[in-house]
């Protein structure tokens, strides 16, 4: 990402972070450049719309730039960005008064486009039917996550979509590690019960 004509000397993440905190936008762009792909995928998984995910990432990065002074490095930068992404997404949903997370609608209109893109990529599934089954189970699981309370949904998304360790989740959510463990336990328990009530997912053990 290039925003100015000045060449940037290669620097470590800490140097970039300190420069960005002092107001160097170019250093901030260099800092977040390796995280953009994953952030866009996370936004696509949350919003279910590629255009909306583009706007969501843009809002997230601007918000992160504005509040970079609040980042105290108690968690990974990617986790912090994902927490901002979650917050912005919730804010967008509240503003639009739409469904809490339209990730499940991915199956209807965006998944087809994604599937078309993925046709040229090596897929881990052994057969197209297997891939479709897995995708369907993933979409149904996302529907279940949508129905979780916000505090439980946050820990599930942070743990599995951001791969954040427990201390990072505690730092981002502003609670103790024990609270995060408890929330994760209750969230998985609720997901398990929801999945048990779904008849088409009961025989999904091989996934």
């Amino acid at each position, binding site marked *: *990402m*290039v*925003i100015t004509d000045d060449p940037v000397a290669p620097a470590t993440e800490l140097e970039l972070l300190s420069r960005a*905190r*002092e*107001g160097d*936008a170019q250093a901030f*762009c260099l800092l977040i*450049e390796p995280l*953009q*792909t*994953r952030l*866009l*995928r996370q936004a696509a*998984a949350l919003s279910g719309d*590629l255009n909306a*995910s*583009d706007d969501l*990432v*843009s809002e997230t*990065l*601007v918000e992160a*730039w*504005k*509040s970079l*002074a*609040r980042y*105290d490095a108690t968690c990974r930068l990617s986790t912090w960005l994902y927490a901002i992404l979650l917050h912005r997404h919730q804010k967008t949903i509240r503003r639009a008064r739409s469904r809490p997370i339209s990730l499940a609608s991915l199956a209807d209109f965006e*998944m087809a486009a*994604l599937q078309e*893109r*993925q046709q040229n*990529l090596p*897929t*881990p599934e052994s057969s197209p039917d297997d891939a479709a089954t*897995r*995708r369907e*189970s*993933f979409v149904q*699981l996302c529907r279940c996550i949508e129905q979780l309370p916000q505090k439980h949904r946050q820990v*599930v998304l942070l*743990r*599995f*979509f951001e791969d954040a*360790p*427990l201390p990072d989740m505690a730092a981002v959510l502003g609670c103790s590690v024990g609270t995060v*463990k*408890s929330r*994760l*336990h209750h969230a*998985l*328990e609720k*997901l*398990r019960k929801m*999945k*048990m009530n779904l008849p088409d997912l009961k025989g*999904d*053990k*091989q*996934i």
Partner: protein
Amino acid sequence: MKWLSNECAHHRQQICLLVSGELPEAERGEVENHLTECADCRKYHDELKSLAAPLTSWERYFSGVKPNEVQQLRWANAIKAESESKPSFSLAKRFVAADVSPLHSKSTKVGADSRRLLRFGGSVRGISWKTFAPLFVMRVVWNELIWPVRRIWAGLAVAWVFIAIVNHNLSDGRPVAMAKDAKPAADMFLAWREQEWVLAQLMGKAEPTVIEPPKQSAPQPRSERRTVSNA
């Protein structure tokens, strides 16, 4: 519904952490031993594992999603535009929210904020740290004097309200003469003399009396007194 034993209930949370990949190595052996012994917990573990499997591999469903150069340029421009605009009030709030003097802390994030604020001096010359000094003082007072002993302050406020209510109820109210619509004293005197004259007329003791207003008590200046005596 089958009730869980205490041991199983204890291990359920650890099984969740095991499935999530966040169980420490030291506790893993204990949980795995329990799983070999308890069929219910083993079933629970298998269900959670099948539940978490699609979630842990979520990214492969989005492997085709990658930011292109146009998107990256747009994001960079958004950040650049934000950095070139004048600092928002949220920056000012963080400026105030710091517990240290912002201009003298060069190694902290507050110092970075302050330097950032000062660097924008060309566009926001009116804003300086003195602008936020009252808010800073109010915050320090709130944090150091009020909030730590907030219950005492709340008790004092309640006592003050109670005393004010009791004082209001026990007071005699406003005197009549001090009321805004009360007549002046001279008018009252004239009205009384007039009533006295009417009563005397009715009783046949009427005498033509001239009702004169009482003398004004305003003192005469010394200069005028002297002229009268000379005359």
